[in-house]
């Protein structure tokens, strides 16, 4: 069994190396080829439908393969999907857009690499927007890896827009205060003093008082706006319950698609100004800020994957009802 898995892993690695070093870059299917591929996929699903109705359920490995194909192929297609901006994302953007140059935004990165595919594109678009509009960003994290994710987002923004390397000064335009253990108690303590929780930054190890962007920033009352990128606990719920409810912090949130439904009560109660949920929220945010990135690219893959799951649900249920009617 182990031997079989090793062979499959080796084949995947070889395919990856061939694709990386031998194939011409970048591969893009023409529109006609893309349409043909979609028709072939549809025919494949029709075939699965026939099999399932006959009582021959396809194996889980075939389902895995189908999902894999549905996720992979859109990367080579050139379709651009029409995207509507939802009121939730518009609210988050309006909060940022209402800030004047020099305003200070607190960004809490409460996620780890597992959720990065959904949240990192939002974070990158957020940094790009702030850097272009002279909005000062104070970064922190309630998750150990959060602060590192913020560094990566800034690095990605600078990679894409090289002029930031000259224009954006660490300590003056943004600062990373790092991770602090203690979950919501960190937020409680920050209500009185940021410095008590973050005596130094984590990028240059500078004392709090020597960092220009933190001048006159004592607690939440000196913050103009805040945004929370969250994948769970501690995250948006804790920020709303402590910082928003108790200290009247103005806040928007970027959540994973799984977590976003939990934030809706806060959104409807206007405790959150806006909410970006999952990959689609990220893509909408990229569109409204004009900072297109990974979320827009990945959205086609996600659309295909959603379609595959829905079609599989429909096929499974059709077969189920047919069997039930036959039994009666």
């Amino acid at each position: 069994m182990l031997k079989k898995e090793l062979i499959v892993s080796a084949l995947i690695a070889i395919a990856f190396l061939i694709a990386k070093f031998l194939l011409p870059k970048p591969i893009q299917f023409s529109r006609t080829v893309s349409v043909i591929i979609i028709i072939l996929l549809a025919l494949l699903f029709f075939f699965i439908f026939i099999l399932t109705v006959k009582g021959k359920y396809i194996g889980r490995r075939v389902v895995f393969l189908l999902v894999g194909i549905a996720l992979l192929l859109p990367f080579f297609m050139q379709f651009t999907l029409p995207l509507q901006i939802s009121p939730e994302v518009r609210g988050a953007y309006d909060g940022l857009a209402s800030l004047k140059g020099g305003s200070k935004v607190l960004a809490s990165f409460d996620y780890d690499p597992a959720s990065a595919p959904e949240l990192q594109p939002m974070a990158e678009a957020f940094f790009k927007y702030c850097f272009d509009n002279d909005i000062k960003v104070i970064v922190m994290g309630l998750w150990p890896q959060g602060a590192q994710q913020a560094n990566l987002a800034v690095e990605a923004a600078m990679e894409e827009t090289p002029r930031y390397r000259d224009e954006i000064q660490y300590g003056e335009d943004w600062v990373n205060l790092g991770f602090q253990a203690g979950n919501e108690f960190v937020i409680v303590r920050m209500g009185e003093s940021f410095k008590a929780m973050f005596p130094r930054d984590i990028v240059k190890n500078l004392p709090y008082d020597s960092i220009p962007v933190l001048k006159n920033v004592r607690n939440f009352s000196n913050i103009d706006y805040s945004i929370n990128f969250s994948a769970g606990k501690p995250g948006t719920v804790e920020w709303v319950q402590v910082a928003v409810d108790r200290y009247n912090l103005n806040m928007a949130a970027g959540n994973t698609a799984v977590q976003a439904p939990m934030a809706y009560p806060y959104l409807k109660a206007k405790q959150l100004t806006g909410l970006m949920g999952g990959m689609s929220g990220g893509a909408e945010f990229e569109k409204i800020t004009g900072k297109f990135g990974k979320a827009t690219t990945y959205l086609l893959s996600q659309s295909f994957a959603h379609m595959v799951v829905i079609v599989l649900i429909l096929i499974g249920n059709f077969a189920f009802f047919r069997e039930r009617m036959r039994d009666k």
Partner: protein
Amino acid sequence: MRREIPIAITFIVGLAYVIAYFIPHPPFNHFETWFTDWFVIIAAFAIWLGALNLLKISALKIAHKRSDWPFAALIIISFLVMISIGFIEGYRGIYADQPFQFRDPGTAFDWMYVNVYMPLSATMFALLAFFVASASYRAFRARNLEATLLLLAAFFVMLGRVPIGDIITSWLPYKYQMSQWAAWIMNVPNTAGQRAIMIGIALGLVSTSLRIILGLERSYLGGE
């Protein structure tokens, strides 16, 4: 005394937090500050405790040659490699001409984080999509009213949250397009349900907290 002292500490700290919330003025706010600082320190130690516990459990697994013990060995090796690289880079950074932090771009730690830890974490999470698809095909059935409602909600939300849903229903007026159905589900039934859950949890939390503060609930001390 092994029970009385923890119960007394719980009572004092719990009461201090309750009073400080309603009267945020000296001396009550100072109590809150002290206790919060203590909590943060304890939480920092808890991270170390968690890491050491993981090492201990993995080491015992190897020592007793329990099932899948090679994975435990891999945990220990990965842990030691990551921590060693972090310390070495940190040490190098202090004495470098241009001082740097162990996690800065270009360091070995950053390379490991970006090229090993990030892809592995994302892969673990991404596997969910494959299992969800397989389960949807084989088990997600409209067997009764509840399951049918769940299935319908999943159908509208999954299609409505991606642009393809609106493309499919583009022939309908805007307010009947798939994204609008998804938005309605999120804004009305979802919000109502989430609020009910939140209120239930909050009431449960209040009553449990009161029982703990008053010493009626002692299970957190162990043994009861």
